[in-house]
């Protein structure tokens, strides 16, 4: 059976002003329906670039990305993205219109149905009463919740989240992680979640893909700890294990330099 998303031997390169940077080298993984698939790595491991390639913004120089067996060639609303930046909402539209807009322009629903679905998903992220406000009047955490509602209302095949909570304060971030898991319990979507925080990866993910830096290569694909909390030490042990895997590189690099 074909997996929902099949990333196979993907090498990604992008040009800066004076050089060609290889962001990832022959990265491969598969995402199944219902996965909370976390891509974890230090800065410079090309995890965001990898997510943008899945989003269709970037074409691999080698390897293929297939969604439901179809090759990904361009961005599309079947892979809704949630970005890190707070300015991802369209400032000229109200919160409700922001959520309804992709449904309308992609021809998914007519206007009344789109507005109704927007209302429904805004209620799911507890922002029902802010539906008619403009984005600039919301806090950072609220803006990210709108962006999540907007992406989920499209009911995409896979939700792509590019460090969506990285710009939030620590308390808000924890609350958002809990809310995201509650939403997953309620709706059961598939997502790829990029982060550089080991704790966040363990908390949010069901599977964790570990990338090494410069260029990004797959180091490991781990199962996260069960969420029932039966073994309270499991998360701590996994965190230590991941930390050691990522840290080993730094030690080697330091030794090589010495």
């Amino acid at each position: 059976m074909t997996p929902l998303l099949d990333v196979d031997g993907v090498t990604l390169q992008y040009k800066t002003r004076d050089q060609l940077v290889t962001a990832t080298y022959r990265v491969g993984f598969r995402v199944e329906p219902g996965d909370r698939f976390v891509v974890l790595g230090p800065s410079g491991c090309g995890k965001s670039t990898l997510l943008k390639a899945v989003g269709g913004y970037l074409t691999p120089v080698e390897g293929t990305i297939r969604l439901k067996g179809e090759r990904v060639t361009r961005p599309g609303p079947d892979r809704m993205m949630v970005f890190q930046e707070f300015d991802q909402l369209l400032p000229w539209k109200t919160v409700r219109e922001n959520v309804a807009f992709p449904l309308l322009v992609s021809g998914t629903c007519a206007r009344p149905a789109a507005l109704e679905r927007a209302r429904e998903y805004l209620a799911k992220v507890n922002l029902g009463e802010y539906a008619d406000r403009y984005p600039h009047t919301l806090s950072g955490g609220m803006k990210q919740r709108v962006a999540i509602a907007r992406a989920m209302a499209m009911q995409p095949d896979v939700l792509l989240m590019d460090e969506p909570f990285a710009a939030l304060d620590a308390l808000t971030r924890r609350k958002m992680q809990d809310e995201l898991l509650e939403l997953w319990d309620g709706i059961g979507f598939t997502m790829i979640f990029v982060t550089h925080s080991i704790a966040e990866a363990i908390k949010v993910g069901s599977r964790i893909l570990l990338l090494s830096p410069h260029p990004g290569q797959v180091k490991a694909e781990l199962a996260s700890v069960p969420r029932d909390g039966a073994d309270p030490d499991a998360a701590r042990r996994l965190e230590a294990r991941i930390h050691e895997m990522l840290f080993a590189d730094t030690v080697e690099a330091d030794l090589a330099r010495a």
Partner: protein
Amino acid sequence: MRAPEAQAAPARPERIVETVDASGLAVATAPLTPWETIANNDALRKLAILVVLAVIWELYARRLNNQLLVPTFSATVQAFVAGVLSGELPLRVWLSIKVLLIGYGAGVLIAAVLTALATTTRIGSDLLETLTAMFNPLPAIALLPLALIWFGLSPLSLAFVLIHSVLWPVALNTHSGFVSVSPTLRMVGKNYGLRGLRYVALILIPAAFPSILTGLKIGWAFAWRTLIAAELVFGVQSGSGGLGWYIVNNKNVLDIPNVFAALFTVILIGLAVENGIFRTIEARTIRRWGMATS
């Protein structure tokens, strides 16, 4: 920074405080005095300045007592009212505005085409940057002699210089607005599957609207000045024209209050467009969206 002789502060007991429910407390607000209410009104303050200026003008003109140099404020208002009532002034205004709107509209349209080219192709962008660098510093009125040779004494000549004065600021501002649309918003638009014209209309134009509006405002001011200046030259030759012609004509017969009344009209129209039209558009768009810079 620590003073060298500083020691660690002595240990203090911890504090845990039960907060009381303070939600029922009234928020202290003092009602504004009538004077403060008046002083807080922008329009009233500006009106007060205008009244003071008018009084100074009136007093100075009365002391000078020379209608040929500076007519009094009251004489100017009289000439203005007489001009409006006789239908002469409204006719001149209409003739000016008609040409202005044609030139402004054409200028904005050409700017849209140029900017579209510049946004979609690199050579278009080079073309726009080169043309703007060349023609933006060139005063539109300097092209009037050429226009008169090419198009003769027709409104086409006026339209030509007007287009020149509108085109470059509008194109420049719109293009720089498009260029500075944030990469995140661009990716959001692409994510929705928007491409081509729909992408420009639904994402780029609203996102760049603050710059576009600035361009339109600057374009309007340039066009209005250029028109009056052009009419001063052009109107004399064509025999009948708009406000600029009215000014020259009245100067020639030494009816100075009418000259002042025409200048007064130019100012009034400028204020009406700036405060009436552009302010309203701003309040309904970029201010409501939180995109205004000031």
